[in-house]
């Protein structure tokens, strides 16, 4: 039943994003499906508006309260747009009828770009799958949902639950202190343009190398590979006082039995001191494995959740008016927020689609924005896409990554948003 009077408090992860987002730090991420026909704009718009009432956490607008922002119901008609040239572009919700996500079309591609205050990758993927499913249905195709499309399941209040709050344990709080990290620097592209390089690999080949040769997981392997490439390709890392820190968001839903569509992920990090100059890929991988095993512990994750929620439960912070909180968030993020990570890797896992949809969707993109370098992984069918995005013109780390994968015997197919002649514009 379509409701119009619901509202939500922002979750812990989402509270800071409205204050600190801007043109060069959009906190927007992208998910795209490439389908087997040219996308019909009107039908796509119909599909989004058909699905939206089922996804209450998406049909919202950001409102200002005296002490905190909150999400209020958004009953406006949603409008789809043609995909812009800039990836994960910052947008003002007021210019988007209040919605905190955008749905784009371009040729045979349906793209969902979501502001991170709304949800994380898992929530956005569930929404995009439902939109695409309804798009095909409205086009007249007979698609069996096989219980894999959320919009076809009954609504559960658990989907709207703030699991940061429900897993908060006052006694498990601890002091979270982060040292500053080594930053990738260099000349950026103009107009906030972000370079997108997609390395499509065969999943079986990748698993063969990762599991058989290195006895690691895919995320551990690519994290170590990225760390090694940064070590090899940068001139100022060794002897730099700050460690290289790669942040890896972890989907907390399996750990805490959650089905929420709101943000419920937490970063773990792989850290590599900069004073060493004897790194090899193998010893970096060993370091990565140890750190992942240590941090991927339910008790430790809950302790970090509790510490983060503890900050927002601080009585002084709670009674601070929103306008002052916004200033404090901006200053805090400027001083600390960006400086604690060197880059990020986000693995969304396998896109589980009904068989009928698999036949109609040929490819998938998952991309993140951010300073330095952001890497994302997503698998569908027999392939895995390793996507690297960067606002920096220096491609040496990306080159090294791809070259090392090729040397391991992995077949790589590259796609990119770069075009010859762009040097004149960007």
């Amino acid at each position: 039943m379509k409701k119009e009077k619901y509202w939500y408090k922002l979750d812990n992860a989402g509270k800071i994003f409205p204050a600190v987002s801007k043109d060069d730090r959009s906190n927007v991420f992208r998910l795209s499906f490439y389908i087997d026909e040219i996308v019909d704009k009107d039908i796509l718009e119909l599909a989004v508006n058909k699905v939206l009432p089922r996804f209450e956490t998406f049909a919202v607008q950001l409102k200002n309260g005296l002490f905190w922002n909150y999400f209020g119901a958004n009953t406006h008609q949603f409008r789809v747009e043609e995909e812009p040239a800039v990836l994960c572009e910052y947008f003002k919700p007021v210019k988007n009828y209040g919605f905190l996500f955008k749905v784009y079309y371009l040729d045979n591609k349906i793209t969902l770009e979501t502001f991170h205050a709304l949800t994380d990758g898992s929530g956005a993927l569930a929404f995009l799958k439902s939109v695409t499913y309804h798009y095909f249905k409205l086009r007249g195709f007979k698609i069996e949902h096989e219980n894999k499309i959320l919009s076809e399941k009954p609504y559960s209040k658990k989907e709207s639950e703030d699991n940061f709050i429900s897993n908060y344990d006052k006694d498990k709080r601890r002091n979270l202190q982060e040292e500053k990290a080594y930053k990738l620097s260099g000349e950026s592209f103009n107009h906030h343009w972000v370079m997108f390089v997609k390395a499509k690999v065969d999943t079986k080949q990748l698993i063969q190398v990762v599991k058989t040769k290195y006895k690691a997981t895919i995320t551990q392997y690519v994290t170590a590979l990225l760390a090694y490439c940064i070590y090899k390709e940068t001139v100022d890392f060794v002897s730099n006082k700050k460690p290289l820190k790669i942040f890896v968001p972890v989907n907390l839903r399996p750990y805490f039995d959650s089905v929420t569509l709101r943000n419920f992920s937490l970063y773990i990090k792989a850290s590599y001191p900069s004073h060493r100059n004897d790194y090899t890929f193998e010893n970096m991988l060993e370091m990565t494995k140890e750190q992942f095993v240590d941090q991927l512990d339910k008790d430790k994750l809950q302790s970090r959740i509790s510490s983060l929620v503890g900050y927002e439960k601080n009585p002084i912070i709670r009674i601070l008016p929103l306008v002052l909180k916004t200033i404090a968030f901006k200053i805090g993020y400027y001083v600390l927020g960006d400086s604690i990570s060197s880059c990020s890797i986000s693995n969304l896992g396998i896109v589980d689609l009904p068989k009928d949809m698999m036949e109609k969707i040929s490819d998938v993109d998952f991309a993140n924005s951010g300073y330095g370098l952001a890497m994302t992984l997503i698998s569908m069918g027999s392939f895995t896409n390793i996507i690297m995005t960067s606002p920096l013109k220096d491609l040496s780390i990306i080159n090294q990554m791809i070259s090392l994968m090729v040397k391991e015997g992995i077949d790589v197919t590259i796609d990119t948003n770069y075009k010859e002649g762009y040097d004149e514009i960007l």
Partner: protein
Amino acid sequence: MKYCKTCNVHYDAPLEHCLLCNGELEYTEEIADEPAYKFKIITKKSSSRFWYRFFFFLAVVSTAITIYLDYMDGLSLSWSLIVAITNLYAVLIFRTLSAASQWSAKVMKILMITAVGTILIGFAIGDYSWSIDYIFPFAIIGNILLISILTLVNKKHWYDYFASLIIITIIGLLPGLLDLLKFTTVSWPSFVCFSYSSITLLAIVFLPSKSSREEFKRRFHV
């Protein structure tokens, strides 16, 4: 599909040269289609903020020059202050008009900026009574009236104006306070403004429907 034989990498993008080694790409099949470009092509953009920055620069320069001239001539700063306030007013209006917000919010902000601007000019020329006596209370009355009309006309989205109404009615009590402290020379506009704000505020507090109670809860959750 294209291929770089140096890097052993396939390309599903319409590039002529390899991204990694800049070597020329070859087709893997004898009769092959050019891979499609799957993104929107970027075109040269003009810097939209240039004119704002230029305008801001002119405002700062003209203010600095007038203050310098006043200071060098040993005059009081009244003339240069008027220039400074007018420049600040123009910059704020420019920002408000170009901001991505609802037109009703823009009108409210412009009314308030204008009221504050006239009070500051009043102080600069040493006669602020006209702005405190008339402009300030009538700007607030106009604002409350505008929001009230919007609330009635747009009943479905009345809560969009809720926070603005609360803030403006609280500000609307100020003219009464200024009158009480004898800052005004003409009392009736301040009295009308104070009364209108008080009645509106009392109506918000004492005539709550279920939905307005909910709205209070949302706006004031800690």
